């Protein structure tokens, strides 16, 4: 049993980037708890100043390899909003398809490669090869299909190429879409097998209600676009996000901390499921029910389950989109909308796998950026991670040091923190005092 603890995990592994957890406990009381982000700050807001409107999506895509599609679209949407670009249905459907691709890429990476080793009791995906070869096979195959989705639509699986302001430099081929459809359909048996594996997991039952924020839309389970909404009862247009979302610089982190209606909030899969459950495909709802995921859900560890349910939804909805595209046929003459640069401000909010992602650009009359503000999902979650840890540690304080350390690490990993985005991740060393 641990009365005094001094834990430092540096870096917490299996998260995209670097993060350190510092935990100091004296007489069972938390003296200090910090989730530190010593990631190299990369200053994208400065890099964007003076760049012509054709460049920001390629530049900001490089904020994060794992959510390069979301950055690309948030960027493009901010620019299109500033210029008042009107898009046709074909462009929207193809973009949504690429968005689903990244959702599956990233959620699959997190659920199977990064989080599953914790729940199956092994250190990483490498030993998993021996203990659970089937899980690894499923993961590798699913990743492949998801990569293919982004590649077919965007020209490359990481950092898409053909997705630009106004539309596409090149459309996918009908054959490409047909092959994708086949690959997606072939995923269903693997989803069923995964469901059985996930059902057998014993997730920590830890609850702490917080504010859940994501975008929302009347027609879709919103990922590509929608108004910003909160479980605390407000809904605002993208352009007005600053009336609700606040940011501050904190000393232990190069990632800024955020708050809205309370002292912290959560973004990501669980927020989306909590706020937009009704819009999930019928099949995805079925999976959610079988896994005991019902909104509102206050258990942070259920983020992993929420991500899996989203994979199911994305597979279902991608097949629907492909069918609609195939039915209407692809029209190369509608690959691009008209783009006329003008001075003004535009905001694009997209759901990246880890949550709402905000790009806010101000353009001058020549179509060059004079000011940029980017708010990244992992940043938005930092404060909430700390609040969760503050609640989790007292609940497990009677466990062994190793168990406490693992508990904290698992909680942090549940958020799937992508620290590259915000500025890299996690170290925990635990020394008994």
């Amino acid at each position, binding site marked *: 049993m641990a009365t005094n603890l001094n834990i430092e995990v540096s870096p917490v592994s299996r*998260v995209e980037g670097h993060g350190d957890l510092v935990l100091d406990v004296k007489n069972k009381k938390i003296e200090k708890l910090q989730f530190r982000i010593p990631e190299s700050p*990369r*200053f994208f807001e400065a890099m964007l100043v003076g760049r012509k409107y054709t460049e920001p999506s390629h530049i900001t895509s490089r904020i994060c390899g794992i959510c390069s599609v979301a950055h690309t679209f948030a960027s493009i949407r901010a620019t299109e909003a500033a210029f008042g670009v009107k898009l046709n249905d074909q462009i929207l459907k193809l973009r949504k398809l690429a968005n689903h691709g990244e959702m599956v890429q990233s959620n699959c990476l997190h659920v199977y490669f990064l989080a599953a080793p914790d729940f199956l009791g092994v250190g*990483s995906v490498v030993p998993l090869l021996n203990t659970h070869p089937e899980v690894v096979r499923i993961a590798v195959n699913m990743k492949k299909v998801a990569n293919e989705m982004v590649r077919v639509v965007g020209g490359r699986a990481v950092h898409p190429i*053909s997705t630009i302001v106004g539309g596409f430099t090149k459309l996918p081929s009908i054959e490409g879409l047909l092959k994708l459809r086949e690959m997606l359909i072939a995923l269903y048996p693997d989803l069923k097998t995964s469901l059985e594996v996930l059902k057998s997991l014993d997730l920590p039952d830890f609850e702490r209600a917080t504010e859940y924020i994501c975008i929302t839309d009347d027609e879709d389970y919103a990922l590509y676009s929608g108004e910003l909404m909160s479980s605390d009862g407000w809904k605002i247009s993208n352009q007005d996000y600053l009336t609700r979302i606040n940011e501050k610089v904190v000393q232990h982190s190069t990632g800024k901390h955020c708050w809205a209606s309370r002292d912290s909030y959560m973004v990501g899969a669980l927020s989306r499921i909590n706020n937009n459950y009704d819009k999930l495909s019928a099949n995805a709802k079925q999976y959610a029910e079988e896994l005991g995921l019902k909104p509102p859900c206050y258990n942070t560890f259920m983020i992993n389950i929420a991500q899996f349910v989203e994979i199911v939804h994305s597979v279902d909805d991608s097949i629907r989109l492909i069918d609609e595209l195939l039915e209407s046929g692809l029209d190369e003459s509608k690959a691009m909308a008209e783009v006329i640069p003008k001075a003004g401000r535009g905001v694009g909010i997209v759901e990246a796998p880890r949550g709402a992602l905000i790009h806010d650009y101000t353009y001058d009359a020549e179509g060059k950026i004079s000011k940029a503000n980017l708010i990244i999902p992992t940043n938005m979650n930092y404060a909430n991670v700390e609040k969760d840890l503050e609640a989790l540690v007292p609940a497990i304080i009677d466990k062994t040091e190793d168990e406490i350390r693992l508990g904290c690490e698992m909680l942090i990993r549940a958020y799937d923190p992508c620290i590259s985005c915000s500025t890299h991740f996690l170290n925990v060393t635990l020394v008994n005092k």
Partner: protein
Amino acid sequence: MSKPKVGVFGLAGCGGCQLEILNLEDELVDFISAVDIVHFTEAITEHSDTYEIALIEGSVSTKHDLERLEHIAKVAKIIIAMGACACTGGLNCLKNLYGTEKAKELVYGDKKDWIDAIDTKPIDAYVKVDYYARGCPPTRSEIVDIVKSLIMGKIPEIPDYPVCVECKRLGNTCLYDIGGTCMGPVARAGCNARCPSAGSGCEACRGPVDDPNMNAQKDLLERYGLTVEDIMEGFNLYNACKKIEQKNK
């Protein structure tokens, strides 16, 4: 070299190069069985400080990055710079272009002194690099090929001809023919002309060929009345560090 110990590290980058290793798909299992991965922050918890080959992603953008790089260079026998950020500084150099101090102030305001940030540099500004896997990101096969050649004791082949060669081989319509622009005639190949094949001009993420005046795609430059200098002028997205360096000379 039998089953070499490999460490995969990330400095200031986007994780995309490391991700391309996890994206090896059908080859992933083969790759992680052929080598002994002892460090890979993005993917595994276990880590050790003994490795022969270091695959390094990202540029040096903080004093902390530099300390880590110097440590890795002490341990590893072979250093592979993985991706544009590590090879040339990549997109991160746009920050130097803006001014590092100014950038700190713009992003962190009056709290700027809390932030550790120095001018971005490629890793060979500080340590000897043995091989370069260029690109943003490099192609997956390239990373694997370099490591495989090393295991077999061969010298990895890195192309020194322009992207146009690959582009023509694929039978693409040249973007200059349809009113576009492209740095393909001067940019180093190896990506199978990815961008022009997707309808988008090459931005030279792999840098220029070694000697652009010798090895550029001359017939194409002539046909469109371009010079090597014209094209190099546009090299500002991924090669800004080099340009700043040349300007300061």
